[in-house]
């Protein structure tokens, strides 16, 4: 391959990377909220003042905080108040924000048991199966970025593939293209089903 072709491919890859970074910037931001409020609410909850603790957690959410730990703690309070259905809903919200957190998974299983739900509720249809599988691995935003990233990868591979003469196209590129295509399809379908849910 000519030097110019390599340079142009590198430029395209750089542009794609910058685009992907720009997209990831969309997700990253934070909120200023008093962390002491959380500690105070935890102390109230530990002292048995569940309603007051609940109010403070609610205020944190009202301030724009949408952290898995707040939903998780609210879920714990709901469990202590003997309301596993509500606890389950709160744990699910927490798991949506932090799907790989083991504490959330553990307490969610307890809440599900208390609420009388089967833990392995069977998913109906391909979309639901993919969505359920992705739910325990990735947040919606992570899934969205995976889908977009694999789409960018596929685009780059197509460009690279077309740079070679037809009789000199490497088989590895073709394989990588097929892998990227499968990744795009699976992640996009999971994303669509998660958004629909």
């Amino acid at each position, binding site marked *: 391959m000519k030097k110019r072709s390599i340079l142009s491919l590198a430029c395209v890859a750089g542009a794609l990377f910058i685009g992907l970074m720009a997209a990831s910037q969309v997700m990253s931001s934070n909120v200023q909220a008093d*962390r002491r409020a959380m500690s*105070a609410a935890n102390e109230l909850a*530990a002292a*048995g003042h569940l*309603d007051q603790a609940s109010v403070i957690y609610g205020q944190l959410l009202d301030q724009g*905080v949408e952290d898995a730990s707040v939903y998780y*703690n*609210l879920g714990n309070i709901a469990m*202590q108040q003997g309301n596993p259905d509500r606890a389950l809903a709160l744990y699910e919200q927490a798991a949506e924000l932090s799907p790989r957190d083991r504490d959330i998974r553990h307490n969610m299983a307890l809440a599900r048991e208390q609420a009388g739900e089967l833990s392995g509720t069977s998913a109906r249809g391909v979309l639901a199966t993919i969505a359920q599988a992705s739910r325990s691995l990735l947040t919606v935003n992570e899934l969205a970025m995976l889908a977009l990233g694999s*789409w960018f990868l596929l685009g780059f591979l197509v460009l690279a593939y077309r740079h070679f003469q037809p009789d000199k196209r490497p088989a590895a590129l073709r394989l990588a293209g097929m892998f990227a295509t499968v990744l795009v399809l699976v992640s996009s379908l999971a994303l669509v089903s998660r958004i629909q849910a």
Partner: protein
Amino acid sequence: MNKTMRIFIISAMLLLGALAALPAGAQESAITATINRNQITTDDLLLLTVSVDSSSGSVSQPDLPQLDGFRIIGTSTSTQMTTINGDTSVATVYQYRLQPLHTGDLVIPAITATVNGQQESTQPLPVTVYQGTGQAQPQQAAPVAPGSLPNLFNFNGDPMDLLNQLDQWMQSQTPGGLGATSIPLMPGSDATEIDPPAGLTGQDFYLEAAVDKTNPYQGEQVLYSLRLYRAVSPMGQITYNAPAFSGFWSKELPDQHHYRTEAGGRPYSVTELQTALFPTVAGELTIEPGRMMIPGDFFSAGSEIASQPVTLDVKPLPANAPASFTGAVGTFDITSEVDSAESKVGDTVTQKVTVVGQGNVETVDDPVWPDAAGWRVVDSQTNTQSDVRDGQVVGARSYQRVLMPTAAGDLTLPAIEFSYFDPSAGDYQTVTTESAVVAVSADAAAAAAQPAPLAAAAAASLQPELRPLKEAPASWAVAEDPVTQQPMYWLLWGVPVALVVGQRGWQAYRNGHVSSDAEKRKRQAGKQAEKALHSARQSSLQDARVPGRILHDYLTACLDTPTAGLTEAQLTSLLLARGLSPMLVVSVQEVLMASELQGYAPQSSGGSGAADLLGQVETLIPALAAEL
């Protein structure tokens, strides 16, 4: 189209299809609007309550549309928090007091707010307005004596209760006739007689602006009055456009005042509108002219009249402000009460602090809270209510602070100082609450003495299995729309497609460019060959090698490769590779061979002469041009 491209396009189509199948998210509305009555008279005030559920995520303030047939004469905002079975919902309540301007079936249009980036609307609310008697209607609730401020200290923690008290007082203050139009046609005979202004010399309409003080302190209330003098009754309703009041915090007063006067031999009806202004900066401030649109009649077009601008010289506040001064200007008082004189460690008590008075109560900052040893503030809510009494803005700001004792013993909640600047005295004043002592018992004994709630006891067995509460993370995750709800995200999906399409376009352009270069070269070679052939004929050519050279030159130019040095086999394969038919290749080879043979051994060739070869070359060149 190759296989990879097909896969790419199919993927794109599948994705587009999947995205098209996305349903619009159905959510419960986070905004609701209610009215206290749906049938009122022109004497009544309507209370429009817009409740926005802040628990739904990011919610904007409701966007109140143009309310045809109503005039907003007061607004207030409060926050309601409800906790049921641990489920906490927080609602911000906006209340608007509306004065109907005419009778008929009126509609309060849909009110919108942005909830998590999406517009949500309330249902339109129909209201039937009947003609009133000109007297304010008696209220069903306990009446409040006109002219007396409701007991603002009687705040029981419910902002709505405080609002209702203020509302009752306000309705008791509403004069008769407010509901007819914003500007009544003629004053009653009992209207007060006033002196005419100097600028009133017999015009049909005249507008005068005035302030009660031109040299106020920063933050001090200034009463801005706009008087409309009318010698005739207009055909329609007069529209008032208030000035922008830049540099002021303003509050329109609900009452209109009516007077009579005489100037230039004509009797005038005078209507006065008032606005309370609070300068927010020191220095010279100018209030722009107030404007009123006078409707036309059958014989004349409508016209606009304007008052004169009013200039104020606002004095800065003195520099010796106490530490507890937070911007209050007027006259204020402060009270504090604690809901319990006894508590235990880890439990909470609620302290209610109320600042009440006349002045800029809506813009004043919170008091400076003193350090309270042994106490920790776990929650604080603020509620502000204000109204107008005798042309003065009065109100109350209430703070409900939830405090937790952290040690046993008699703990003191210190006195709270509140300083304000009194413009009449020209100095700062300080008011102070009483300190309070709360007897705090140790938690363990108290907790043992108290039975645990049933639900908590029932859930206690679960506690060992539950993973513990989590501490606050190093950085909070923010409540915002998922990335998939942001247009930029979906626009980025187009980038790879655009790059691939762009690359294809560039290649097509490049191919076209190369092809046109070859065509140009071919045309030029044809012309040169034609010229060479013509020149050879003119010079009675004897050398048979010339036709061969002409043919070589033509081929060299067309193929962009020298052909003279090639062997017969190399030339054949080159011509075939460039798409020439075998027949034509054979003809070319024959001409070249004959030209070479006759050039070196003219007698032995026995073939055609140079002229014949020229003729053959002449025939070959168009054929080559067609196939190359």
